């Protein structure tokens, strides 16, 4: 086989493999979206229905707005309050993420420039994150109950902030390391104070990296389940907890409703991703590009 043919064959095989992989990866998402538009009769049918026929908004209206006529159906679930959960999730995830990125970048700056933590300490910091949450969640709930933090927003924000801080430090440090010292020193000798240098020079230069870090941590906190399950009861529920209520309840598996809720959980992340996509490409490829 001559070279150009071989190259062509390789390329065809590559496309086939990648296409198959894409189908496997995207099928669950497709299934979720499609199910969310299916009337209840098509949730379980065999052979499966790939395209809802006819498509309906019933699931969305029932789940998100609890509209009378839908709430009254046999699939209504008494405790549902997804809009409140959406608000809780938004506040808890964004606040804890912001705090983590803010404190993380300050610590990272100290580590990068002043070596306030040794290599070993930095790895220990990352090790904290390696502890499976299941190990700490039971003792933590005792602490929380003693401190009155159980089933409170502050409690969840605090634990999310603390558990994502190591990521924030590690990620932002790698971005700060990329900023040449000489650029900071140039600002300093031109009369800028340390704080001014950080705010006028360093932070704008690592903006894309901060945004990438923010999204990364936001995804983690937005979809966190175990800690939220144990540390909250009825006062503060987040969307992942809400989602679990549609499964295995006495009414059976309400796939359509669950899918409609799941789409609602996914969309906000996608919107955030779209808004900041310009930064993401730069942030995630930071340091891989030769300066």
């Amino acid at each position: 086989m001559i070279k150009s043919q071989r190259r062509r064959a390789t390329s065809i095989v590559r496309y086939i493999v990648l296409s198959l992989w894409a189908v496997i990866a995207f099928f669950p998402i497709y299934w979720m979206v499609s199910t969310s538009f299916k009337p209840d009769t098509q949730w379980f049918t065999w052979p499966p229905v790939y395209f809802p026929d006819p498509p309906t908004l019933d699931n969305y209206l029932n789940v998100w707005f609890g509209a009378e006529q839908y709430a009254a159906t046999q699939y209504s679930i008494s405790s549902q309050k997804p809009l409140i959960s959406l608000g809780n999730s938004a506040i808890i995830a964004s606040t804890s993420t912001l705090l983590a990125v803010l404190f993380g970048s300050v610590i990272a700056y100290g580590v990068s420039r002043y070596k306030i933590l040794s290599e070993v300490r930095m790895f220990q910091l990352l090790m904290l994150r390696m502890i499976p949450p299941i190990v700490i969640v039971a003792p933590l709930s005792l602490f929380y109950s003693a401190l009155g933090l159980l089933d409170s927003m502050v409690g969840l924000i605090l634990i999310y902030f603390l558990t994502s801080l190591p990521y924030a430090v590690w990620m932002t440090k790698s971005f700060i390391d990329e900023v040449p010292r000489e650029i900071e020193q140039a600002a300093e000798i031109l009369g800028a104070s340390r704080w001014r240098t950080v705010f006028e020079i360093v932070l704008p230069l690592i903006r894309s990296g901060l945004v990438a870090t923010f999204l990364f941590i936001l995804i983690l906190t937005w979809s966190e389940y175990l800690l939220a399950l144990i540390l909250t009861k009825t006062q503060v529920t987040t969307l992942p907890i809400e989602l679990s209520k549609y499964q295995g309840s006495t009414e059976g598996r309400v796939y359509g409703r669950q899918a409609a809720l799941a789409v609602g959980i996914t969309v906000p992340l996608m919107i955030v991703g779209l808004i900041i996509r310009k930064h993401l490409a730069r942030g995630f490829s930071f340091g891989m590009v030769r300066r």
Partner: protein
Amino acid sequence: MARIELCNLEKSFGAVKAVKDLSFTIEDGEFVVFVGPSGCGKTTTLRMIAGFEDPTSGEIRIDGRVVNDLEPRDRGLGMVFQSHALFPHKNVAQNIEFGLRMKNVPSEERVKRVREVAEMVRIGHLLEKMPSQCSGGESQRVALARTLVTNPSTFLLDEPLSSLDAKLRRELRAECDRLHQALKRTFIYVTHDQEEAMTLADRIVVMRSGEIVQIGSPMEIYSNPVNYFVADFFGSPSMNLVAGEIVQESAATRFRSPAFDVVLPENFKATKPGAVTLGIRPEHVGVALGDNGDVELPVRLVEPLGKDTLLYFDAGTERAFIAVTEGLGMAEITAGERITLSLDRRRIHLFDTEGRRIGGAR
């Protein structure tokens, strides 16, 4: 006004002594060039003056005032970095303006000063551009302008031209010289390029392994190197250095090596017999077309440079023995030809086995 004194300055990084007991005074308005091979401590010295490195011991005084504990921004200095260190997210005008903003200069005044300085280094047309859109030479001019605008008492320049190509280097070298003449400020310039040092400096400080080897005007350094290292470092093509020995014979002091047997002038009379290295600059080697020369050597290579011609001879040493001759006539000499050479006696240098100069040279 800025007179900078370095007193017993030392800097160690762990067990490594980067700068050893350095004492030296830079006079107001002087253009001083620190030169030496990489790792000789020249940049560390500059960074200590700037305030980016704390001396391990010793003092730095600016106009008599000890500045060891002053922040870089409080020392009244300006610095141009090797990497130019422009702020990538600010355009050229904002880069230049930065120092003025930090000093709370009102905005109309800032705009005016930025324009003036930009004109001065001929980058008036670049003000709206981003640093990434500027060429290497342009970036360097922007870096200069950014420093100029704050009107510092002293300019610190850390290998500012090393990232540029040869033609631009010459151009910007002239620019630095012009600025120094015009501003009459103190300039401290660090480079590893001996040519830059020779052309720019009022005084050159030659450094090696953290120590000052020699201080002097470019001509002093060139004509009277204190040791083998300085002799070899300065000059292009570099000085011919031939290992051999001193022999006292019938009232004459002679230098002998496999290729050479030269009677040394009076001033070397007291030299003890033993191993030495003879040094002579290529321009002090005469091509004698008659027979009355010192040595006859075969030509290895002829390099016509236009005005001059470089002749490389085989002297039985690893490095060729070089002679510079004026005129193109010499370009017709071919490799392999044997040529008689005469050494200008007054320009001979001798170095002992430690590399130190032995008597003689003026």
